[in-house]
């Protein structure tokens, strides 16, 4: 009967109920689309940053990231890789050799980050071959080939087919120098990284620096971004090696993660604004309804209805309106988010985030794009109806029935 009364009361002043529903519906839809948009955009940014480049999880020798050094290398990486691959959720892994050097082409010289990669594994993990905008990928076997980042190629005025001299210091103290032919130019999406990236075949990089069989980084790709932390823990357990640091992207790309987190927190401000809009709409409805029905509440109390029943009847009535608004809002926001997740919005001018350039952004349908606005609407409706409902529940029946 409580529900019946609450439900039928929502139909008494249809115009007012519709106005309240529109407020809640608008608030819900706005919040849902915003969260879907935010989730879609950020997951794309994270993917560009991790899936397409850094990997979701990285393994280094202990403290390598704090103080990178040629000598903080990982031995027997194949065995480690096999153990990593056995962890459920791991899609693939790729080894990387990292060192600094100087690259010269004719009279141009530039500091470079030498990245030794296993072409097959790197392509499997980060779609490396898709990043090559000029030339071709590495040959299957080492052949003194190099692929340059787009920015570096511009600095050195290098073209496919040019020969570049690399100079650095080997692990044994000897001068490490060699000549490599440019076979391709790659654009990873990260302009900063592309200004210094000098890719070599893994085994040739190891030979150049006299560190055969050693690498500096293992990048791991997992099946779901949300599983990263869980899988990191499992890898740590399975490796059980204190000499290795196993870190999720949130740790090895800490500044990127924190900048993004700060941006995402802006969402809560938006939710607060929505909450206020809904609250004002609901407050109007509740106060008007209680004012109009004060006499009726007096009658219900006279008949023996307990104060808490009156209270819950009012709160329930508002929540029925809220639920109906949520259902309608969910329908609309699902349609809009679905369309935006397929077609996206192409930006008139591109923007860069964490060094990555974005020309279009896409929405996403995520559970939180529905449950966060739903909780926000329900919560604001309940909180706002709380005190007027309490007042109605406490009113003296005789006093209430004197009101016409």
């Amino acid at each position, binding site marked *: *009967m409580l529900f*019946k*009364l609450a439900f*039928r*009361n929502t*139909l*008494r002043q249809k115009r007012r109920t519709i106005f309240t529903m529109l407020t809640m519906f608008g608030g819900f839809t706005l919040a849902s689309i915003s969260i879907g948009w935010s989730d879609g955009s950020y997951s794309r940014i994270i993917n560009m940053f991790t899936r397409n480049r850094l990997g979701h999880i990285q393994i280094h020798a202990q403290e390598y990231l704090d103080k990178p050094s040629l000598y903080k290398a990982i031995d027997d990486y194949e065995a480690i890789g096999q153990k990593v691959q056995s962890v459920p959720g791991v899609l693939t892994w790729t080894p990387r050799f990292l060192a600094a050097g100087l690259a010269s082409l004719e009279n141009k010289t530039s500091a470079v980050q030498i990245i030794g990669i296993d072409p097959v594994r790197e392509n499997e993990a980060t779609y490396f071959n898709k990043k090559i905008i000029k030339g071709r990928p590495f040959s299957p076997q080492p052949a003194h080939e190099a692929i340059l980042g787009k920015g570096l190629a511009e600095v050195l005025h290098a073209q496919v087919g040019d020969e570049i001299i690399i100079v650095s210091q080997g692990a044994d103290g000897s001068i490490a120098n060699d000549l490599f032919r440019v076979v391709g130019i790659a654009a990873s999406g990260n302009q900063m990284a592309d200004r210094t990236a000098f890719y070599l075949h893994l085994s040739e990089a190891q030979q150049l620096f006299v560190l055969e069989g050693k690498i500096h980084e293992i990048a791991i790709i997992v099946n779901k971004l949300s599983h990263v932390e869980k899988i990191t823990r499992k890898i740590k357990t399975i490796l059980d090696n204190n000499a290795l640091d196993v870190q999720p992207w949130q740790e090895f790309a800490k500044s990127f993660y924190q900048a993004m987190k700060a941006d995402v927190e802006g969402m809560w401000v938006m939710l607060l604004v929505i909450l206020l809009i809904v609250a004002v709409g609901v407050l109007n409805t509740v106060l008007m309804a209680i004012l109009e029905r004060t*006499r*009726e509440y007096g*009658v*219900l*109390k*006279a*008949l*023996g*209805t*307990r*104060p808490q*029943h009156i209270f819950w009847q009012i709160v329930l009535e508002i929540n029925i309106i809220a639920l109906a608004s949520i259902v309608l809002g969910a329908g609309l926001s699902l349609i809009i988010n679905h369309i935006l997740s397929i077609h996206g919005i192409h930006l008139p001018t591109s923007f860069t985030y964490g060094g990555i350039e974005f020309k279009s952004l896409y929405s996403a349908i995520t559970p939180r794009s529905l449950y966060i606005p739903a909780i926000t609407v329900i919560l604001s409706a309940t909180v706002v109806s709380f005190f007027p409902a309490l007042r109605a529940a*406490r009113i*003296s*029946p*005789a*006093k209430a*029935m004197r009101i016409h």
Partner: protein
Amino acid sequence: MVETKNSEPLIRVEGLRKTYTDDGVPVEALRGIDLIIYPGEFTAIVGPSGSGKTTFLNIISGLDRPTEGKIWIKGRLLEEMSDKELSDFRRDNLGFIFQAYNLIPVLTVEENVEYIMLLQRIPREERKRRVRQILKEVGLEGFEKRRPPQLSGGQQQRVAVARAMVSNPSLILADEPTANLDSETGGGLLDMMRELNKKTGMTFIFSTHDENVMRRARRLIILKDGRVAEDKQIG
């Protein structure tokens, strides 16, 4: 069934006073009332407007609190009860009939009548049986699915009577029950209530200044300026 003074009093009122504040000015609605009402009475509280009839009914039913004085109903002192206890007490022992009917407009006739039994957690089958029976007794068979705005004033007051009686309360309080009805409809309604009073032994207390009610009452308590001016048994 006739009231009996050999039984325990249903209501005992001692030194009842009620003072309201109207725009900061104290108004004495009741100025010291002492009364005893026995089970089965069919009593009318009469008096001019402002004599304190409604205030008296509100206070003895626990809808309002007195400024001074004590009220016992079925041996229980009302002032010792919390709001929640008073609600439960009203639910289980009292039935109300109001001048303005005060039916719940969003509920149908049968739902209005059924409402109190729902509060009392009476099983569904028993509720339905009692609703059918009481609507038949008040002559509203076939009106079960109608809503109050679809009924005449007399029919609405019959629903109110059915609602008041369906849970078999010890006491029915009726505040000017015929004030909004024509004399023929009002008279018919009172005859019906008198019949129910005789048949069930429920106690009825009316506040009224309707001759129709006074003629049918077995006891008249006349209030004047918040005091009992006269208390007489009839017939």
